Each structure stands twice: as structure tokens, then as C-alpha cells.
């Protein structure tokens, strides 16, 4: 992903499934193909959120380790 994300969301410390819900709310405000960057905790959030977003039609373009967790690059899917 060469261009900067269209929106950023810090979900550090937000429990499941609230983190997924908040990511879906942010994605709903984007157009198809736009990019949301999310900071996510390691462990359950990282296990649960990416597959839950994929189930709702979005795709994970990149996963990158940060000092405290993960940075996800999410491509907004179709309605």
C-alpha cells in the first residue's frame, strides 16, 4: 500500500467484539476500495478482528507488527 490510509483508528485496549464493531463503523464511512488503518492489540483482538472484517466483505491488505501490537491495513469492500 503506497498511498496513505484514508482513515485511521486506534483500537488499542478496546475489547472484542467492540473493536470489530468500531472498525465496521469506520469502514462504513469510506467508499469501496478506500483504506482504513487500524491499530490493534496482540492476542484475541488480532485473532478475532481480521476474520470478522473479512466475513463482512472487507479485505486485509497488510498486517504489520508495532511496538505494542499490530497495524492492519484494511481495504473497504462492497456494501
Amino acid at each position: 500500500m503506497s498511498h496513505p490510509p484514508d482513515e485511521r483508528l486506534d483500537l488499542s485496549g478496546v475489547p472484542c467484539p467492540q473493536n470489530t464493531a468500531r472498525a465496521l463503523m469506520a469502514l462504513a464511512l469510506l467508499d469501496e476500495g478506500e483504506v482504513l488503518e487500524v491499530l490493534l492489540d496482540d492476542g484475541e483482538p488480532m485473532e478475532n478482528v481480521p476474520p470478522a472484517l473479512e466475513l463482512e466483505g472487507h479485505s486485509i491488505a497488510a498486517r504489520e507488527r508495532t511496538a505494542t501490537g499490530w497495524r492492519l491495513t484494511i481495504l473497504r469492500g462492497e456494501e
Partner: protein
Amino acid sequence: MIYLDNAATTHPEPEVIEAVAAAMASGTGNASAIHRAGVQASLLVERARVTIAARLGADPAGLLFTSGGTEANNLAILGVAQAGGRARGHLLCSAIEHPSVRQPLEQLARQGFDLEILPVDSTGRLAPDTLHHALRPDTVLVSVIHGSNELGTVQDAASIAAICAEARVPMHLDACQSYTRVPLDLGAVQADLVSINAHKIHGPQGVGALWVRPGTALDPVVHGGGQERGLRPGTLNTAGIAGFAAAVALATPARTAQVTALRAHLVAGLRERLPWARIHGPREGTLPHVLSVAFPGAMGKDLFMALNRRGFLVSLGSACSAGSTAPSAVLTAAGVSPALARATLRISPSHHTTRADLEALLDALVELTQPGAAPA
């Protein structure tokens, strides 16, 4: 029937009932479950959190859903006073607090806290200076009702909160009656905790919230799962929360202006047609939907019953103290004599009330209370 008891509870709007029913019928899961049905429930809750917090100008992350205003008030008071196992300290509140604030404070006093109740003036206002002088180094909490459920008086929340912020004392604002009816921007008003609820604004009963400013020390009062950041465990009332948000969306300034105009119409009618009536509370700075008025010489209970028989549903003082024969402590705190307090009714219109409803009520009140009228 003409329903004029909207400060006790309101009738849910059709859009609210639809939102509650849709949430219940949509197969949503437990908002803590991580499968798709749980995510759908969580999505309803998080969307509602944004809508509800926005009307406070507040960060949605600070909003904790509760079972209503009483639980929000209990959580704020018990949770802050006893945070970190604290067992002593000085507590301040006004003399016109709702029982769901006054009772937990008195419970803390029985356990060793020092509760000081601050006087209000004859309109029900707490002077910010009174609070300023009462603060002590060991004060751990100030709790003030924003809009009085009995008198309608709206407090100067900004000044009161600023005094508390300067003294670094957590300040709780009970905004259960004022939420959406009186503008409140928590970016400007430095309150640390704010209680709100749904059923006072045409939402469902059984759902409310406490907004907590980041950094406020708060312990849970109810213990269980980790919902609501562990501060208010328990499965969330997803359908109720969806209805709460629907109610907030409908609570527009235009609707408030409509109710304000109805209250003004009622006040004008009372002054013109019932000059013997005594209106409590301030002339300016009141809740749009609360009018407290005494009819000297009448027994409030008898008048209430006579109006009830004629289809006018009002309240005696406060619904929450219904059943009690003692005069309202809130009215007497504002200097109303016990006899006049017993002759007081609370009339509480909504945007569904018409001017014709109020004219009919005034006709009945003239007949029932004019000097020399047969006892109701």
C-alpha cells in the same frame, strides 16, 4: 386521557418502538460474543454510543450503559466515593437531589463518610459561591442535579463544575431530566460524571448511561463479566440501547422549543385565570417540561385524584416519592411551607400535548381550586 406526567416517564415514539423491535427481531447476539451475531449487536451498541454521547459533546468511549438513571447515579456516587477502597471523605450535594442521588449519599454517610447538604435559594438554585465555600481538602465528590425533577430549576452547571475542577474534586451532574432538553456541552462544562436516561426523552424504560471523563477514579458497584470496561458488568440491553439512540435522534431543539412554548402558555393561563395559584421555581432557566404549582387551600392529593377522575394525569410533587404523605423535601428546601408543598402539583407536558389540552386543564383547575370551591 391527557397525559401531563412526562417528568415521571414519557411515551416512547413510534420510531423508538420500531428500533427496539427491529433490534429484538434481527437475531442479534450477546454484544459480548465474538461471532457475527455478537458483532451485529455490538455494532448497534457502538452506533448508539456515538449518537448518545454526541448530544453531550462528549467522547463516546466515556459512556457506560446502565439499567437507567438510578443505576447511573448509584455508580457515580458509590463508585467514585469508594474508589480504591476509600472509606472516609467529605461529600457535597444540593438540598434538592433526586432520591437516587440522596439515598446512596446517605448510605455512604452511615458507613463513615461526612455528607454535607448545601442549601438552595427560593427558586431552587445552588449558588456557586455556596459550593465554593463548602469545599474542603478532604472533599471526594460533589453531586448536583442539573434540572430539578420537582421544581424544574436548572443549575449553573458550568460554574459549579469549574469550581470543582479548580479544586480537583470529581463532580457528578445528574442530567436525567435535562438531557437533550437543556444544552450541555462537556467540552465546555467540566463535569466528570453525567447521568442520563432514555425513558425521560420518549425512549424505552430500563436503559440509561453514565458518562465518565477519562482519568476519573471509579470502581464498579456491580461485579461480574468485563462489559463496559469492567465498570458496569452485565449483558448489554442491546434493544433498549438502540431505542435510546433513536429517542436522542428525535429529541431536536425544535421539539424542545415546542414544549417550552406549551409551558409558557400554561404559566400565562395560570397567571390570568388562577391568580391564586403559586408557581414554584425560577421564571427563567427552568426545564421546558416541568411546572410545579401550588393551589393554596387545596389538598394536593384530593386535587390530584379529582383531576385523575377527569382524565388529567399529573403528579403530586415527584412520582418517585409517590405514596409518601410527608411534604416534598425538595419543595421545603426551596422554602415552600409544608402546607403549600402539600397543595402542589407537578404538571409536565410533552410535544404531544396541545394548547386545547392545557385550556381544558385550566378549566378544571379553576373549577376545583377557585376560592370558595367545594373541596375536590
